[in-house]
């Protein structure tokens, strides 16, 4: 037994209120085992992990009950059972970093930008092994970097973090955590901020390291696909409690608790299955209705950003964000634009709506070239092409009520004769996205993330557009909320005959919603075709790699 958490309670003080973040959580982890804590945001999984390593700010944290028993292996090999909650701070510090290590979600901010990678690993080493010499520590650091498969570790050790990519930084974080050979590694959503192909590499690396060192891993995630790949056992958390735990196969195939079932059902791949089996007729009806009319035609579209350098700001290079893309989007179709971060998919989406100016090429909307129109000439088109954004926190003006945000565009485009009429229209749209009618009079900060995303959809809908660009609309949301938003989009699309350009990196969502998909890589579309065909028989190498990297909850494979 490596770690045993019994009836842990963690209460956090926020202002005058006390938040019962963790309420009676018990689990245990053996050596060489990976244990996953799964849950939606706010379920208390990160707070549980931070309680184990005792990293929560002490002046606002209290543990009214429970114990965290850790099998502490002394440097001389002696084993001792310690309770992390009652241990004095100096002894906790000796355990933290050397016996329990942690890696975090955001690799971009978890390394100190003013020290080299090597310095940061060496510092951690020398802190826990004061007897180690500088040269020895340096060698260990290089070995640690080699262990996490960073090429040229002898040179990379002297690099500053900004020279490394996100995936490499996460490798450095793992190297730092592994340098002291910990018995327990806590990984708090270590791959959430990474692209799928990088995520697949990091997960493989963690499994390999675990096989070699026999450490226990406490893995925190919200992604069931990752769970299925990593864990031996898992626990599902909700509102600070564990609602269900057990071996991965059992929990994922035969979930006993209603909440677990609900979470698994909310996965886009499962939504898809239900749609295919249950609502098939409408899909076919759609295909019959689908005319061959092209609504949006993008031809040899390029957006380059100049890179300027020197005193005279001369253009020395171009960032080719979108580099010669041609696409046809048919009326009533949902086209998914897929690719990893930095491939230019968001730039393309905004370029089509003329939120960014094209360098060359053209966009035709129903055969009208809109690429060179002046703002005034563009106005009638703006009404018919709208956008929904990724981040529900920043996509609504915090100073305006929902009513103001919805009625202003209507007034500008002359929809509705009076303010009252516009309000009634706004209310109708608000009901269509399944929000309570009194939402109109509230400010964005009074809503949750999922509700704000619905307001974002409502804002796009009030102008009654025929084409909407959905820019990663669900990637900031929890699975169950994501499922609701996807279902709303699906219904709206059928009711209003909308054409969507759906930008995403989530393959499950693509399979659920899209009729056809385009894969983008380094500013170019590398593959374009019907969703089923591209997913089942990809023709391009990159598409194949991308699809293989997606962690899937494949119940058949588990059984």
């Amino acid at each position, binding site marked *: 037994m490596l770690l045993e958490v019994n009836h842990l309670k963690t209460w956090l003080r926020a202002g005058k209120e006390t938040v019962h973040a963790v309420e009676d959580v018990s689990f245990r982890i053996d050596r060489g085992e990976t244990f996953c804590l799964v849950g939606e945001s706010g379920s208390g999984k990160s707070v549980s992990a931070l309680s184990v390593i005792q990293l929560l700010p002490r002046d606002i944290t209290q543990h009214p009950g429970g114990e965290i028993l850790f099998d502490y292996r002394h440097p001389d090999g002696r084993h001792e059972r310690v309770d992390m909650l009652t241990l004095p701070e100096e002894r906790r510090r000796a355990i933290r970093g050397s016996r329990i290590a942690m890696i975090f979600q955001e690799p971009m901010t978890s390394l100190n930008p003013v020290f080299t990678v090597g310095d940061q690993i060496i510092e951690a080493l020398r802190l826990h092994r004061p007897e180690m010499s500088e040269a020895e520590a340096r060698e260990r650091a290089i070995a640690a970097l080699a262990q996490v498969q960073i090429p040229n570790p002898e040179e990379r050790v002297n690099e500053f973090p900004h020279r490394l990519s996100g995936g490499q930084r996460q490798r450095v974080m793992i190297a730092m955590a592994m340098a002291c050979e910990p018995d327990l590694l806590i990984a708090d959503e270590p791959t959430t901020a990474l692209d799928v192909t990088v995520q697949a590499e990091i997960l493989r690396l963690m499994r390999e390291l675990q096989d070699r060192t026999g450490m226990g891993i406490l893995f925190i995630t919200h992604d069931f696909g990752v769970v299925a790949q990593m864990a031996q056992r898992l626990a599902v958390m909700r509102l600070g409690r564990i609602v269900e735990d057990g071996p991965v196969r059992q929990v994922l195939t035969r979930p006993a608790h209603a909440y677990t079932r609900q979470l698994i059902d909310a996965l886009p791949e499962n939504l898809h299955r239900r749609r295919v089996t249950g609502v098939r007729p409408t899909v076919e009806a759609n295909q019959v209705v689908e005319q061959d009319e092209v609504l949006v035609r993008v031809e040899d579209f390029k957006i380059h950003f100049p890179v300027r350098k020197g005193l005279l700001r001369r253009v020395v290079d171009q960032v080719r964000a979108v580099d010669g893309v041609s696409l046809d989007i048919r009326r009533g179709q949902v086209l998914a634009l897929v690719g990893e971060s930095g491939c230019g998919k968001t730039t393309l989406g905004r370029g089509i709506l003329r939120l960014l100016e094209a360098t060359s090429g053209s966009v035709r909307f129903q055969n009208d070239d809109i690429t060179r129109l002046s703002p005034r000439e*563009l106005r009638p088109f703006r009404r018919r092409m*709208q956008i929904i954004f*990724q981040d529900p926190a920043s996509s609504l003006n915090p100073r305006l*009520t929902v009513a103001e945000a919805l009625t*202003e565009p209507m007034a500008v485009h002359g929809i509705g004769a009076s303010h009252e009429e516009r309000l009634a229209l706004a209310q109708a749209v608000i009901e269509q996205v399944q929000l309570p009618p009194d939402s109109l*009079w509230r*400010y964005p*900060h009074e809503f949750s993330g999922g509700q704000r995303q619905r307001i974002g959809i409502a*804002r796009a809908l009030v102008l009654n557009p025929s084409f909407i660009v959905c820019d990663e609309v669900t990637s900031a949301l929890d699975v169950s909320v994501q499922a609701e938003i996807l279902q709303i989009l699906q219904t709206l699309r059928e009711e209003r005959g909308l054409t969507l350009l759906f930008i995403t990196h989530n393959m499950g969502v693509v399979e659920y919603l899209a009729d056809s998909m385009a894969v983008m890589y380094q500013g170019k579309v590398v593959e374009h075709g019907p969703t089923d065909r591209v997913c089942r028989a990809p023709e391009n190498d990159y598409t194949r790699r991308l699809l293989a990297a997606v962690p899937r909850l494949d119940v058949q494979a588990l059984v």
Partner: protein
Amino acid sequence: MTEAQVIQPPARARSYSAQVAREVFTRWGARLGLAWILVLVMIAVFAPFLASSHPLLLAQQGQLSSPVLAHLNAADLTILAGFLAALAAAAWRRPLRHRLLLVLGTLVASGILSYAFVTPPALVVYEQYREAEAAGAYDWVVRAPIPYSPKDYLRDYGDTGLEAPLAEGERRHWLGTEENGSDVLARMVHASRIALGIGFIATGIALFIGVIIGGLMGYFSGIVDMIGMRLVEIFEAIPTLFLLLTFVAFFGRSLYMMMIIIGITSWSGYARYVRAEFLKLREQEYVQAAVACSLPLRSILFRHMLPNGAAPILVAASFGVASAILAEATLSFLGLGLVDDPSWGQMLNQAVQSSTFNWWMAAFPGGAIFLTVFAYNLVGESLRDALDPHLKKNA
């Protein structure tokens, strides 16, 4: 339009600015600062009734008269009208824009009317009331709390000159008198108008120019930004104080010119703040959404961007008011301020100029300048804290 009833907003609405205001008012620094500024505003508005040689009310042979009212000049009346309009606006349940318009409209209208029609007697004889009272000509008389006008040099007494606070004698001067014999407290009360006025109006002018130029720079960037930034740099290179000195030398001394010059030389800081905010806000998704809805530029700039970028500008403005007050005090101290009207800086100057050091002439106006600047800085400080995203709980 299936629904017959008109959709009405509920009474309860918690806007972001209301939240920030509440946050500001819970800080003791802001409370103290605002309290002092409010006191100053009251003193400035009612200065003619607080310190005046003219009796507030008197009865002479059964006839009631109010010499104070008869001697109010156009500026006094405009300020009073503006104050009443502000009170009315505070009670009026309408959008902030309407209320501001009400106050500004009243100010302009009453200003024009009073300058056109009100002509107080040109020759003011302060002694007459004292002599008449001594002669027993009045049945009864109500005097102001400080029964001396700022320019009443007490010539009727003949022995006037410097006098320490509460010195022996039949006349009571709470803060002493200056070298010409007029009451220091009365002068300070009237000088508060100049301090407040120059602070608000100079900063207002600077804000107006700065927000417009900075906003355009930030929103359009590119070539507009480049030209704007060069303009900012040119104005930052002009030393305000020396420009003021030059203007005073050429065109004589005028309060309004001082306000305008301080205003048009200090907008560059605000323009920089607004530009930086707008550069950041332009990439925000709700601004992109506004562009995608093809909203007019005016709405994007002033409805969607400015309110969200106003925080650092407000903070800078409250410090700007303080520095405008200091600039006026400096000028007056150098002897280049207003000739006739009292101001705090000019009183400090008097303290130094006389052959002996008269502490009351330095301490009270100096203290008033210090407290006022300090109050504005406290308010700015609390505003900054309340708006600081690092301290704010996640909304």
